[in-house]
């Protein structure tokens, strides 16, 4: 073992240690709090139709748009009641997983 090797600093509860990292460690995702007002696509697909309009009041469970994925029409529903602030997509748009579709106020 050469003592000249450049190690990474690993911070732990018991202190900071010089060491190497692993691929999994480098690729781990840091936790992000999900904002329920920001509606994201859970699966990739295409927007079939959009029934929500900016400024419209919606109630929990209302269908906002239809996302076609795996040959199925998936209703994207309002998780809570509120006003539609922004619509980020239009019919025909190809959607990737995690893409923001709509925001409520």
């Amino acid at each position: 073992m050469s003592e000249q090797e450049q190690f990474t600093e690993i911070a732990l509860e018991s202190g900071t240690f010089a060491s190497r990292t692993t691929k999994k460690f480098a690729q781990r995702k840091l936790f992000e709090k999900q904002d329920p007002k920001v509606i994201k696509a859970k699966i990739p697909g295409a927007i079939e139709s959009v029934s929500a309009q900016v400024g419209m009041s919606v109630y929990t469970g209302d269908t906002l748009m239809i996302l076609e994925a795996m040959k199925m029409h998936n209703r994207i529903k309002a998780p809570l009641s509120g006003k539609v602030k922004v619509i980020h997509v239009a019919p025909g748009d190809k959607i990737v997983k995690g893409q923001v579709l709509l925001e409520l106020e």
Partner: protein
Amino acid sequence: MSFTSRILDFFKRKSTVSLGGGEKAISKQKAGGKMTARERIAALLDEGSFHEYDLFVEHKCQDFGMADKELAADGVVTGSGTIGGRPVCIYAQDFTVAGGSLGLMHARKITKVMDHAIKMGVPIIGINDSGGARIQEGVNSLAGYGEIFYRNTLASGVVPQISVILGPCAGGAVYSPALTDFVFVVDNISKMFITGPEVVKTVLGEEISMEDLGGARVQAETAGNAHFFANSELECFAQIRKLVGYLPNNSRAKAAMIEAKTPKASYKIENLIPKDSKIPFDVRDIVRSLADDSEFFEVQELFAPNAIIGFARINGETVGIVGNQALFLAGVLDIDASDKIARFIRFCDAFSIPLVTLVDIPGYLPGSDQEHNGVIRHGAKVLYAYSEATVPKITVILRKAYGGGYIAMCSHHLRADFVFAWPTAEIAVMGPEGAANIIFRSEIMAAANPEEMRKLKVQEYTDKFANPYVAASSGYVDAVIAPEETRTYLVHALQLARTKEESRPDRKHGVPPF
């Protein structure tokens, strides 16, 4: 028919069936860089030792035009032979026959040789190279898989079970290897997954190649399903032969003792430890400085490298080595390392292989990623496995042994038979920085220069508690020893523990945190 013609007829039948799927299929198999089932068996076992059974077994399927189809030996070669003179049972799926697909008779041949291995008390080796279930045989094919999984479970802890993945092994088929003790994979040849790239694409829109989804490297490095990775089939067979040499034939036997050898002079323990305690060292070098002929046969080398497991011999006796590897992630216990260590401990315990644990652990890996994926239940496996094990357990604390990590790494409290600590050991409730921050919080906050005071208090804590003597004063460490004395202590402890007897409360079985 005359005697001679009957003999000639027998040889003709034998040679026809032995050709498997025929020359065309064989050349296709070879074009893919793969050996045939029979070539594999011949290369793995001692020369000329293979005895085949059930060569003339035929499938019974009548549906989908199968009635007229002849499938040589029903796509699997089974039998027994020797490795290094030691008997083993073996089967190898023949991809040249209907893609090695598993039908009822194919499965029966496998379960028959498995039953044989259990009854005779010898290791069972399965070479997997199959497209999966033989769809024409319907639910009978599934029955075949189920019977194999059941036997894998029966054989678990009775005879060593080795799986070799030399081709595709997909869908339900993956669960036989997963139930066995050691899985071997070869780069570019082995492919293992529950659902293949096509389904993944349809369902998730995820585009991923077979290699990236479940190739040999992924299984050995990321998923941890494979224990040994090789670049060629021949290298893989050499690894299997080596492994078998370390193991006993069954759980009633002890692994064979071989002539003791001293470690090589190049692995002098005093020279391996860095002067600066902040610099990590390769714990495998410490193993080599203690093991006969400095030989360490590492298991799951690529997976969770922050912990090491493997086999070595000390004074001629096979031992299982477990160690924290400070070279990666400072040697923390995380989910993967816990799984890796716990399964290995249970294997060694089942097959009467003494455990030597080398401790240098700063604690557990913090973070939502670990907590949300269940580091609590995975970490608990290590505690369970060490506590449950009744084989001789010897622990050597090299440097850090903090908090829960100290307890988990085969401490006195989990019934290590011997706990030795080097003078460099730091056995404490937590690392000096963390401990000082808590104990001296008010003094640090009240100081004119808190940072200065913090440093002072960390030093104070280090001087007083970051050593082996506090634990030794309570009898939690049996002996503080100089690093160069370690092998002598291990040799003696193993000698003493050879007649160890320890029992556990009567029960059907425990309920480990799987």
